[in-house]
C-alpha cells in the first residue's frame, strides 16, 4: 500500500461503474447522464490519523472517497503497528457514521435524568459554562470543580490538567490508571516514571503474571506483532508462560498455562525467587552492582516463601515452581537472551497490589534482565508539552483538599472515592463536574452512588458531559457538548512501549465534522480564553497547541517517518507540512535512565515507598500509613515485595466462588458497545456473538446441575445478574469469569436494546465496593458469588 494515491478512479471508470451500477436500481435514461457524471468524477484521498481506541496509538491511513471516509487501514510505516490494526480500530468508520451519535449540544429540560433535552447553540452552551465557572471563581469555589476523564492520550491530559489548575482546581481525575506513567512495580523499585519498554521479540523467556499480551495492556497490536516475532521470527523461539486464573487467549497461545488462585500472584513470584536464591541462580553481577537491600530481601524470601508454603497459597505445585524458577533464570551464559517477568498493569484486581507488582518485577532484577536488549529497557523522556516562549506558564496545582480524597486522609485518594464523596457532600459539594469520555455510572463498582449523586439536586452545581453518545452518565447531565469523532479531530499520541524508539504522532482531522460537534480540546481552549487564562493556555485551538509541540520536537532533531524513508527537515515549515502528511515522528535514539531514585539502584527495600508512606502517615509515620492501608507486614518487610492476603467480600459458605470480571479485545466496554460489528464478533473462544455470559468450570457446573447455555443468576452480597452459563474448561473450579461490556441501559440502539430489555449484565453492578488503598483505584477482583439457576 502506498502512503498516498493520486485520484485515479477517473482513469479506470470501468471498475467504479461496475460497482455503482450494482448498488443502484434501475434508472431512467434522463438520469443516466448524471450517473455517468457521478461515476467518472471521483476523488480519492489517503489521510493519516491515530487510533484512540486503546492506549496503543496505532497509526491510521483513512481512505476518503468523494469526501467520505470509506475505510481505515493501518499506517504501513507507523512504528507501533506497521500496517496492522485491532478490530476496534477498523470499526472507526462505523463509529464515525453511527446513527446514534449526538449531533448537537443539548441542554436538559425538566429534572435531571428525565430524558428531555433541547438543542442549543454552541455559543449558548459555552456561554452558560463560562458564566458558571466565572461565578465559581468569583465566589472562591473554583476548587470544587472536577474534571473526570476516561481514555485520554498524548497532550489531552496535560491540557485538561492545566485548564483545571488555571481555573483553580486540583481535581483532574482519571477513571483508571495512567498508561504513560510507569506501573507501581517499576516506580517503587527503580524510581522511574517513564515506563520500561520490553522488547519481547528478543527475549528468551517471557513469564507473564496475567499480563494480557494479546488482548490488552499498552498496545495489543504492537504486542501481537512481538508475539508473531517470538514465535516465528528469525532464529527465535521464546518460551511464553502465562500465570492467570482464567485461560485467556494469551494463555491459550502460550507454551504453558499455569492456573493460580486469584490474589496470590505475589506468593508465586516470591516462591520463584526463593528457588532462585536458594540455588544461587541469580545474576550475581547485576545484583551486587545495581541493587540495594538485597540481603534483607533474600533473608525474608528464604524464610517465608518455601515452595511448599507457596503451593498451599497459590495452588501451583512445588515441582512446577522449582522447574519454572530454573527455566526462568537460565544459565547466564554469555550471549543468552534475557528472561522477563511481566504483570498486568490495568486496574487493581486486589487491594495492595503494589506489592504483587514489586514481587514480579523483582524477578527481573534477580535474572539481571534490566537495561538489556530483550529485557526491560529504559526510555528517553520527551518534552510532554511545548517548550520555550509562547507555551504558557504552568499554573501551580491549588493547595486545596481534593474531591477524590480518601475519607481517612491517609490512604490514597482517587476515582474509587469520588462517587461516595460527592454523595456525602464531602469535602464539599461540587461546583461543576466535567465528564470527558467517562461513564462512571456504568463503569465503576459504585455506579449506584454516582447515579444517586447525579440525580440529587444539591450535590453538583453543573454537570457537563463531552460524550459522543447518550450513555448512562450523560443521561444525568445538565449539558452535553458532543465530542467530534476521532477521524474529525486533531490527534496526538506519544508511544511509551516501543523498546529503543520513542515516536510521537500528530495528525490533522481526516474530514471536517459531519455534525454540529466540536473537538473537546478546542472547547477547553475556548473556555480558557473566555475566562482570561491565556497566561497558562495561550493557544487559540488544539491545532495551535499541536504546532507548538511539533516545534519543540523539531528542535530535538529526529525525523518524520515518510514513504521516502524519512528525512530531517531543516526549516520548521517543511517539517510541519511533512508531519501532517506523514503523521508520525521518531525521536533521535537516546538512552533513558534506568533509575530515578536517590540510590540510583534497584531497591529491594523501597525507599521511594518509605518516603511516600511516611508522608501519608504524617506524625504517625510509616506505621500509621501501613495500618490505615491494611498492610499486614511489619518493619522492613512492608517496604519490600511480599504477599498480602486478599480479603474477599462475602462469606465463603454463602458465596463459594470468586468472580473475575475481564475485558475482551473486540468488545471491551463503554466505547465499543454501540458497534454492531463488534457485537457480532465478541469472542472466539466460545464463539460468542451479541452475548453476555458467565464462564464456569465444567466440573463446578456439573455439581450445580448447570448445563451449557442455561440461564443462571450470579449472586453476590450486593445484587444479582442474569447471564448465560457457558461451560469453559479454561475456568478454574473456584472462579467464575464474566466479560465486561454488556448490560447497557443506554448508549445507542446496539449498546442497549431498542425494545427496552437489557442484554445480559454488567458485572460492576454486583461488584463489591472495595478499593486499593495504595492506588485509589477500585479493586475489581475481590467479590465472592454463588450461582443459582434462573
Amino acid at each position: 500500500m502506498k502512503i498516498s494515491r493520486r485520484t485515479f478512479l477517473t482513469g479506470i471508470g470501468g471498475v467504479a461503474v461496475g460497482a455503482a451500477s450494482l448498488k443502484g436500481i434501475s434508472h431512467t435514461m434522463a438520469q443516466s447522464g448524471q450517473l455517468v457524471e457521478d461515476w467518472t468524477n471521483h476523488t480519492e484521498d489517503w489521510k493519516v490519523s491515530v487510533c484512540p481506541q486503546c492506549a496503543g496509538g496505532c497509526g491510521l491511513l483513512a481512505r476518503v472517497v468523494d469526501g467520505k471516509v470509506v475505510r481505515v487501514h493501518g499506517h504501513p510505516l507507523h512504528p507501533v503497528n506497521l500496517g496492522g490494526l485491532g478490530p476496534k480500530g477498523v470499526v472507526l468508520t462505523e463509529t464515525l457514521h453511527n446513527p446514534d451519535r449526538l449531533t448537537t449540544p443539548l441542554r436538559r429540560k425538566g429534572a435531571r435524568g428525565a430524558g428531555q433535552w433541547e438543542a442549543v447553540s454552541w455559543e449558548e452552551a459555552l456561554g452558560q459554562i463560562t458564566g458558571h465557572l466565572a461565578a465559581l471563581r468569583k465566589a472562591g469555589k473554583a476548587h470544587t470543580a472536577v474534571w473526570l476523564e476516561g481514555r485520554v492520550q498524548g497532550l489531552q491530559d496535560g491540557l485538561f490538567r492545566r485548564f483545571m489548575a488555571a481555573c483553580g482546581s486540583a481535581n483532574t481525575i482519571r477513571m483508571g490508571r495512567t498508561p504513560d506513567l510507569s506501573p507501581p512495580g517499576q516506580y517503587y523499585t527503580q524510581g522511574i516514571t517513564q515506563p520500561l519498554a520490553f522488547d519481547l521479540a528478543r527475549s528468551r523467556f517471557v513469564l507473564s503474571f496475567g499480563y494480557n499480551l494479546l488482548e490488552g495492556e499498552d498496545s495489543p497490536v504492537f504486542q501481537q506483532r512481538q508475539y508473531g516475532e517470538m514465535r516465528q521470527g528469525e532464529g527465535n523461539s521464546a518460551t511464553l508462560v502465562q500465570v492467570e486464573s482464567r485461560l485467556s487467549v494469551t494463555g491459550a497461545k502460550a507454551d504453558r498455562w499455569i492456573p493460580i488462585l486469584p490474589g496470590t500472584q505475589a506468593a508465586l513470584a516470591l516462591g520463584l525467587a526463593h528457588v532462585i536464591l536458594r540455588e544461587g541462580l541469580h545474576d550475581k553481577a547485576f545484583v551486587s552492582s545495581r541493587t540495594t537491600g538485597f540481603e534483607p530481601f533474600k533473608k525474608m524470601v528464604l524464610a517465608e516463601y518455601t515452595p511448599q508454603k507457596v503451593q498451599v497459597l497459590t495452588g501451583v505445585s512445588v515441582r512446577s515452581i522449582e522447574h519454572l524458577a530454573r527455566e526462568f533464570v537460565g544459565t547466564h551464559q554469555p550471549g543468552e537472551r534475557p528472561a522477563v517477568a511481566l504483570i498486568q498493569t490495568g486496574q487493581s484486581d486486589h487491594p495492595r497490589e503494589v506489592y504483587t507488582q514489586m514481587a514480579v518485577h523483582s524477578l527481573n532484577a534477580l535474572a539481571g534482565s534490566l537495561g538489556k536488549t530483550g529485557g526491560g529497557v529504559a526510555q528517553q523522556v520527551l518534552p510532554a508539552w511545548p517548550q520555550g516562549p509562547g507555551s504558557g506558564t504552568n499554573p501551580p496545582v491549588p493547595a486545596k483538599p481534593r474531591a477524590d480524597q480518601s475519607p481517612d486522609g491517609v490512604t490514597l485518594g482517587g476515582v474509587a472515592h469520588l462517587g461516595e464523596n460527592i454523595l456525602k457532600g464531602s469535602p464539599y459539594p461540587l461546583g461543576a463536574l466535567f465528564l470527558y469520555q467517562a461513564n462512571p455510572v456504568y463503569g465503576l463498582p459504585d455506579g449506584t452512588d454516582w447515579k444517586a449523586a447525579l440525580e440529587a439536586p444539591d450535590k453538583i452545581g453543573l454537570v457537563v458531559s463531552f460524550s459522543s453518545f447518550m450513555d448512562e452518565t450523560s443521561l444525568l447531565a445538565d449539558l452535553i457538548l458532543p465530542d467530534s469523532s476521532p477521524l474529525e479531530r486533531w490527534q496526538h499520541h506519544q508511544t511509551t512501549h516501543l523498546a529503543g524508539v520513542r515516536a510521537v504522532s500528530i495528525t490533522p482531522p481526516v474530514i471536517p465534522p459531519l455534525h454540529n460537534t466540536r473537538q473537546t480540546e478546542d472547547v477547553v481552549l475556548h473556555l480558557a480564553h473566555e475566562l482570561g487564562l491565556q497566561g497558562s493556555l495561550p493557544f487559540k485551538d488544539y491545532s495551535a497547541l499541536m504546532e507548538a509541540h511539533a516545534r519543540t520536537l523539531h528542535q530535538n532533531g529526529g525525523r518524520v517517518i515518510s514513504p521516502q524513508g524519512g528525512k530531517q527537515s531543516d526549516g520548521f515549515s517543511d517539517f510541519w507540512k511533512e508531519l501532517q502528511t506523514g503523521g508520525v515522528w521518531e525521536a533521535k535514539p537516546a538512552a533513558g535512565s534506568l533509575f530515578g531514585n536517590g540510590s540510583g539502584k534497584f531497591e529491594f527495600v523501597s525507599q521511594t515507598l518509605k518516603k511516600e508512606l511516611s508522608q501519608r502517615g504524617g506524625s504517625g509515620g510509616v506505621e500509621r500509613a501501613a495500618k490505615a492501608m491494611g498492610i499486614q507486614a511489619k518493619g522492613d518487610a512492608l517496604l519490600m515485595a511480599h504477599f498480602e492476603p486478599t480479603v474477599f467480600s462475602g462469606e465463603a459458605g454463602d458465596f463459594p466462588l470468586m468472580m473475575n470480571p475481564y475485558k475482551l479485545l473486540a468488545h471491551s466496554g463503554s466505547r465499543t458497545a454501540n458497534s454492531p460489528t463488534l457485537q457480532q464478533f465478541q469472542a472466539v473462544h466460545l464463539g460468542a456473538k451479541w452475548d453476555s455470559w458467565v464462564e464456569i468450570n465444567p466440573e463446578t457446573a456439573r455439581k450445580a446441575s448447570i448445563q451449557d447455555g442455561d440461564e443462571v443468576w450470579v449472586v453476590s452480597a450486593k445484587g444479582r445478574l442474569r447471564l448465560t452459563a457457558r461451560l469453559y474448561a479454561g475456568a478454574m473450579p473456584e472462579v467464575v469469569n464474566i466479560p465486561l461490556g454488556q448490560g447497557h441501559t443506554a448508549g445507542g440502539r446496539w449498546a442497549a436494546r431498542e425494545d427496552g430489555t437489557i442484554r445480559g449484565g454488567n458485572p460492576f453492578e454486583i461488584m463489591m465496593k472495595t478499593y486499593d488503598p495504595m492506588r485509589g483505584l477500585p479493586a475489581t477482583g475481590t467479590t465472592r458469588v454463588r450461582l443459582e439457576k434462573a
Partner: protein
Amino acid sequence: MARWGMVIDLDKCTACQTCTVACMEENNIPFVEETEVRRDRSISWMKVVGEQEGEYPEVKMKFFPQPCMQCENPPCTKVCPVYATYPNPDGIVAQVYWRCIGCRFCMAACPYTVKYFNWYQYHDKVPPLMAAAENPDVSVRTKGVVEKCTFCHHRLMKLKDTARLENREIREGEYTVACQESCPSKAISFGDLDHPESEVARLADSLRAFRLMEELGTKPKVIYLAERKKNG
C-alpha cells in the same frame, strides 16, 4: 499466469478477529442483528473458529481463521445450475450475485462451510449514513443470494487496470487483501504461489504447511502452517 494464494501461520494467529472485521469493512458485509445471529445467520467471509481440547487444567485451545479456501478443484462450482459461482480466469472462485438463484447447492457442496446466504435484505437495516460510506469498489448483495470471500478481487481488477495503463505487469506484493493487510501479528501472507520469490511460495514449501481436508482432492489455495510444538 499468477496463481493467487494465501498462507496462514497458525503459530502467529492470536484470534483477534481484525481480519474478520477488516474484511467486513472492505467488502461491505452487513452486520447481522442479534435475533438473526441467534439463528446462525451471521455473514463473515473470513471467520475465526476456536476449538477447545482437553479438560481443566490440561486444556488447549486452537484458533483457525477461515476464508474461502479458493480450491483449484472447487466442489461448489460444479453443482451450480446457473453458473453463478465459477472459477474465474484469475483462478479465484467467483460469485456472480445477479445470476444466483439462491438454491444454496453450493453451500451444501462446500466442505469448508464458508459460503453465506442472504436471508434478508440485510442492507436495508444499515442506517443511511453508514450505507453511504461503504466501499465504492464492492457491490452490495440482495436478499436470496449466496456470497463468499473473493480474495478482494476488486483490488486485483483495479491493479490490472493500473498496470495496463502503465504498460507493465503486476508487481510481486502489490496485490494485497484486506485480512492480510490488517493482521497485527503478520500471520497472513498473500501472493502468487507460482512466483519463485514470493513469500507465499516460500512458506507453502515449509514443513509446517498443510491444507484443510486435502484428502477430498479440492486443492485449496489457502495453506495453513501448523503451530509448532510448545515448550510444555
